């Protein structure tokens, strides 16, 4: 497949792996956090870990949108779908996120709620236009990548006076989450989470550009390499991070220069600014309440803001006590260190949100990498002789 296979080439991967192994100083360890779920997925799906030397470890960050969505926000959506009779639309993975009392949007659907999976915000608006006598709510989630499309449908609904369409907005901001991790006592003062640098977001950076990361590099002395979501992108970014650490540099470098520039997509940024404003605070699953870390719909579009329209009141709900999603999202623990992992909590029966999406740290490890948790069985030889 053109323009894809080039970024998954085994020979190039071997070359990059050799360069990382050669340049990584055997006398020290390297801990890099890939912020995005897209990177987590690529690392797990392609087995990138097998190509890294043992002293280079990847920590899965909180950049998986469904993973950071707190229970209380899902509860709001379930309430709308079950008690207010709305058509509730959202992206596939969101429907499986566990909420209060073991519920989820999918289970609400089985109970009779009208919950629909959509591929885009525009689909939800289409459903609203096709059902003028029903209230249609789009449960919007995601980082800066999915925000412009939501802004676009809000503007369109406003202009077209689609009165029965509203958005339950849960859009969150990447830089705020990175600051939260860097400011956490585990990283800042206790030093229990060694963090030598970040593989920076791919798609998010196409929108916000590389400039917002310059602050982290300067203020926190952490190198950032913006990387694409293909496995070779990730490997090249790791090599660039190893070099920065070795040379004691902490800069923002752009591996994903085929798409990302310093300023980002100004048109998308303007669109987002027109429709959304900063929330004073927002609860993240795993990170807790993070100031100025999310967006809400501006007053001008209030008619399409589900929170205002249905007078929704947010009630925070604590995670299951044994669930370690919070510590895992901050890189303090690994999935296998959670008592629930692989037993009570699996992709079929997720207890915590990291087990829901294939971009979540737990689901990615369970689905792709859990054979590494046992040492008893040695790696078999090549399956098929070429």
């Amino acid at each position, binding site marked *: *497949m053109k323009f*894809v296979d080039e970024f*998954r*080439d*085994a020979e190039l*991967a*071997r070359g990059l*792996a050799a360069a990382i192994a050669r340049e990584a100083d055997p006398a020290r360890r390297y801990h890099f956090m890939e912020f995005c779920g897209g990177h987590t997925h690529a690392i*797990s*799906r*392609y*087995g*990138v*870990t*097998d*190509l890294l030397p043992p002293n280079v470890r990847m920590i899965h960050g909180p950049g998986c949108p469904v993973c950071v969505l707190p229970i209380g926000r899902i509860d709001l959506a379930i309430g709308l779908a079950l008690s207010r009779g709305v058509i509730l639309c959202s992206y596939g993975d969101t429907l*499986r996120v566990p909420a209060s009392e073991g519920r989820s949007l999918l289970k609400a659907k089985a109970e009779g709620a009208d919950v629909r999976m959509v*591929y885009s915000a525009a689909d939800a608006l289409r459903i609203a236009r096709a059902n003028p006598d029903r209230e249609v709510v789009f449960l919007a989630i995601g980082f800066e990548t999915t925000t412009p499309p939501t802004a676009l449908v809000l503007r369109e609904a406003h202009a077209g006076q689609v009165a029965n369409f509203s958005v339950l907005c849960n859009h969150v901001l990447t830089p705020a989450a990175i600051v939260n991790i860097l400011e956490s006592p585990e990283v800042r003062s206790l030093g229990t989470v060694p963090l030598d640098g970040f593989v920076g977001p791919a798609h998010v950076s196409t929108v916000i550009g590389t400039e917002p990361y310059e602050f982290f590099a300067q203020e926190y002395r952490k190198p950032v390499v913006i990387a694409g979501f293909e*496995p*070779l992108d990730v490997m090249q970014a790791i090599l660039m991070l190893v070099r920065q650490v070795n040379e004691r540099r902490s800069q923002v470098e752009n591996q994903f220069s085929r798409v990302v520039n310093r300023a980002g997509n100004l048109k998308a940024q303007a669109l987002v600014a027109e429709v959304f404003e900063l929330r004073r605070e927002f609860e993240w699953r795993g990170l807790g309440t993070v100031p100025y870390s999310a967006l809400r719909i501006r007053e001008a579009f209030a008619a399409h803001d589900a929170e205002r329209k249905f007078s929704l009141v947010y009630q925070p709900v604590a995670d299951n006590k044994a669930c370690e999603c919070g510590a895992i999202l901050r890189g303090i623990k690994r999935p296998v260190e959670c008592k629930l992992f692989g037993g009570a909590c699996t*992709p*079929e029966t997720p207890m915590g949100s990291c087990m829901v999406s294939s971009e979540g740290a737990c*689901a990615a490890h*369970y*689905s*792709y*990498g*859990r*054979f590494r948790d*046992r040492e*008893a*069985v040695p*790696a*078999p030889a*090549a*399956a*098929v002789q070429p």
Partner: protein
Amino acid sequence: MSAAARREYHRPLDLRRGRVELAHGAGGRATAQLVEELFLAAFDNEWLRPLNDAASLPMPAGRLVMATDSHVVSPLFFPGGDIGSLSVHGTVNDVAMAGAVPLYLAAGFVLEEGYPLADLKRIVASMAAAAKAAGVPVVTGDTKVVEQGKGDGVYITTTGVGVVPPGISLDGAAAREGDAIFVSGTIGDHGVAIMSKRENLEFQTEILSDSAPLHRLVAALLAACPRIRVLRDPTRGGLATTLNEIARASGVGMLLEESAIPVAPAVAAACEFLGLDPLYVANEGKLIAIAPAADADRVLAALRAHPQGRDAALIGRVTRDPDHFVQMRTGLGGRRVVDWLTGDQLPRIC
């Protein structure tokens, strides 16, 4: 049914503009007319013709195999097939995977009130053509009608029986360490064909469902290599899920080689676009074969000698593994688990 008897009906069925009515399933004259003018006309054979409650059939000696499969695919017509042909292929293949020669089919129809008879006629014609091409007659059937809004046009359940020739013993629990794992061709075609139709996606090359009867390929394969241990058609859940089922049943692990697994470029591109993994996408005309390593060359040659196995490939080996992991060496050179399908990647595909 004689011409004189057919004249009992005042007017023939309006197969151009008519619609399914509740009376068509009520068991009265309307039901009889639908059966005779639509189903019998299409499926006509000596066992169905008497229209008794049960078909009376001759059976050759041997071990009897029986399989049943309900079809609820949406949309009913998709590139490369429709629910009619699919309902024949699905059950013929289930019977064939036991190593059996499929002999007869039974068909149960659940029709939704209001469904156009013209579309039903197309489905039945396609089903009859598929049965004829496969050489497996539909010998008995049933029709029920549900109220509008309580069905989705047409659901079809087919049941098939077949006979296993002597000397053949296939079992999902029979895979052994060291065995070779084959797939008979490109994976993911059916699911992507359905999905592209459903999402109105258009690609430069139209992706067709691979829906096809596999019993002739199976017969050729077993003739060349009777020691084959496992045959399975990787339908729902795709290659990955079927291999996990076999690994668990046999108490073994597997190691696959990603670069050896055939995927058509258009399917790979569509999966990339839709966020699907072809390993989990349904097939309706492919089989997985597991055979002793010593027979690997013969199996591959036999598969590739048949038009339906042209793109067959050796994709991996059976390993010893107490956890029954299906693992894969990725194209990039790393390793991963190929797990069971979680949830529902694509609902209503067959």
